[in-house]
């Protein structure tokens, strides 16, 4: 049944990669994700993992290497943070377009400026529409589990798509938590070996990625969309099997905390929601009907789940830990997408956007308290006087 170890998010990710028996890994240093690669290098040096660590000359090369390796039939892993994530941008769409189930860890970091290493979701959210599955883990345990689940979902024949497993820089990458590290037999039962019928093999020559004519574009893109549409079903099944084999059950889409009779909730993703939960619990002690909804799967965005499950609240405050300038709604991408998802319930659910924790700052208890109070005011008056607030300047 494995054993409990006190490890960081970085080490948890590396443990998952070891358990997944990955064949080819490509590395390049950038804080805060670097610890994942150092841990993997140590495992390989000690003979605990039989994989090759290819020292790429940059993140663009990291992604190029796993593109080639995955197309040759290897299970692959890479990772990055901040400007490293954006430096590799060219290669993301070719990987998903060729339906290569590469996995990449992102330990969030701001883009420059500010070059302060702090965590922000801005980096990973930049590449949100490239045809990759994407979600945020909020603890080291969830990091390990999400890596395993995403390999299984991405490599499913109905899906065959790459995956970003994101964790907040420092708040998760560097903070220790107790992690149940499963044993190999459990993982074998959960995760079948990587098999792609569409690979480079001189015994069965195939051409991968030819030029096409415009008329061939729509069907090709539509197939990628259809694969995306299949993810939810596969994700649900993988979470069920995961719960059965490992004994840990997660909601695949939304984790709800103290929401049963809640009137207002904070909605967000990643480790800041741990703070939000602590504040919600405190407010519950005072009799306030507040809760937290934590998004676990960001791509595909669970529009229907949100519509179904969140239309019962009076006010939803969406927290964006990212800088997206000029975006619709005036906060961040989560706010914009939650508003779109809730459009069909009309004016019944009020939404307010909050941008917080930029540059790697904590979103403090006091800030969450102010957000909850603002939401309660909106719920009570039924009026949204200001749609979005940048903290701490505007609230």
């Amino acid at each position, binding site marked *: 049944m494995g054993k409990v170890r006190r490890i960081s998010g970085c080490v948890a990710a590396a443990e998952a990669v070891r358990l997944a028996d990955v064949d080819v890994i490509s590395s390049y240093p950038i804080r805060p994700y670097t610890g994942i690669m150092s841990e993997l290098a140590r495992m390989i040096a000690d003979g605990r993992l039989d994989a*090759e660590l290819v020292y790429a000359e940059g993140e663009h090369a990291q*992604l190029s290497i796993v593109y080639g390796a995955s*197309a*040759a039939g290897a299970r692959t892993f890479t990772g990055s943070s901040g400007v490293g994530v954006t430096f590799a941008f060219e290669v993301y769409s070719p990987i998903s377009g060729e339906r290569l189930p590469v996995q990449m860890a992102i330990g969030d970091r701001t883009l420059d400026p500010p070059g302060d290493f702090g965590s922000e979701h801005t980096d990973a959210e930049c590449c949100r529409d490239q045809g990759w599955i994407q979600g945020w883990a909020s603890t080291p345990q969830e990091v390990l589990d999400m890596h395993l689940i995403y390999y299984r979902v991405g490599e499913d024949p109905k899906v065959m798509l790459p995956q970003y497993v994101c964790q907040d820089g420092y708040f998760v990458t560097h903070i220790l938590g107790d992690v149940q590290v499963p044993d190999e037999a459990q993982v074998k039962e959960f995760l079948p070996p990587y098999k792609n019928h569409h690979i480079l093999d001189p015994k069965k020559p195939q051409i991968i990625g030819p030029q096409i004519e415009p008329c061939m574009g729509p069907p090709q893109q539509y197939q990628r969309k259809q694969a995306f549409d299949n993810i939810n079903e596969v994700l649900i099944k993988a979470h069920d099997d995961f719960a059965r084999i490992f004994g840990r059950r997660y909601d695949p889409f939304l984790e709800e905390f103290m929401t049963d009779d809640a009137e207002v909730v904070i909605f967000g993703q990643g480790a800041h929601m741990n703070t939000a939960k602590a504040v919600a619990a405190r407010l519950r002690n005072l009799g306030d009907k507040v809760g937290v909804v934590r998004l676990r799967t960001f791509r595909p965005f669970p529009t229907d789940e949100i519509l179904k499950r969140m239309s019962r609240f009076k006010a939803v405050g969406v927290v964006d830990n990212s800088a997206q300038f000029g975006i619709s709604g005036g906060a961040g991408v989560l706010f914009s997408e939650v508003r779109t998802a809730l459009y069909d319930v009309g004016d019944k659910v009020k939404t307010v956007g909050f941008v917080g924790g930029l540059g790697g700052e904590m979103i403090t208890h006091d800030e969450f308290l102010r957000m909850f109070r603002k939401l309660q005011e909106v719920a009570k008056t039924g009026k949204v006087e200001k749609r979005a607030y940048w903290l701490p300047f505007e609230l």
Partner: protein
Amino acid sequence: MSEFERIPSIKKAPDEEYYVPGHRTCGGCGPALCYRLVAKAAGPNTIFIGPTGCMYVANTSYGCGPWRVPWIHAQITNGGGVASGIETAYRMLIKKGKYTGEQPNVIVMAGDGGATDIGLQSLSGMLYRGHKVLFICYDNESYANTGIQVSPTTPYGAWTTFTPSGEVIPEGRKHFPKDNAKVVAHGHPYLKYVATGSIGYPVDLMNKVRKGLAQEGPAYLHLHAPCPKGWQFPPDKTIEMAKLAVQTGMFQLYEFENGQYTLSVQLKERKPVIEYMKHQKRFAHLKPEHIEKMQAFVDAKCAEVGITVPVVAAAQ
């Protein structure tokens, strides 16, 4: 280096083709001829990587391609990286018992843009890490697929759409070209074999491919590949242009191993560069002083690799 079978003559070259008809490169396309010779020499246990350029676009139109071996598209930026991944994957899959078969030949066919400019970092990373990959630059001396723009290997004085000749800049292209074989030859510890080749000398070219593939680590070939469209000469003159480039010393044919240049053809004399340039409209605007500059540059390049024969103008 492992043993390899030398091709003694064009007649004794293998009949089998692995780059077959069914593409839409221009008539007389030098890079397409390169591909045919490289594929023939490499044989069936080969995977090609094709960074964006004419040899991707003109070969794979309509969703199909002219290869009888596996081929994968790479970005113009990352031929070396993609090849590194493929080579490593096969090595690991064989080691872990996940693939039964021989390690395939891994060959990148990159244009001069993909090899010497935007893809140079990727090439260098691959070479320095020692992947067993043959990286080939088919040099048509321009960004051809985008409609003939200047690249690092475009000769001094050549017209391209980015280097037009005008009153202020009469020669058009002002820079002298980058010499990529020399850029890579020094400083990559696992790179033991660097050579240049030309479609005007097909047996030599094919044997260099085989020798490159027989290396334990990476190899780099730089192939001269005349482009009738970009250089503006008639399509039936491709081989003549290739030969004239070597005979004038505009392109030097050699192998570079153990710090030594070995010349691949023994010239008795060199023709003046004008004998090559006069056939190509891309040089038509040049004045005598520009041709002189070109001659001096070529003389120096030849001396660098040990081509010391005199330049002799043809009798009038």
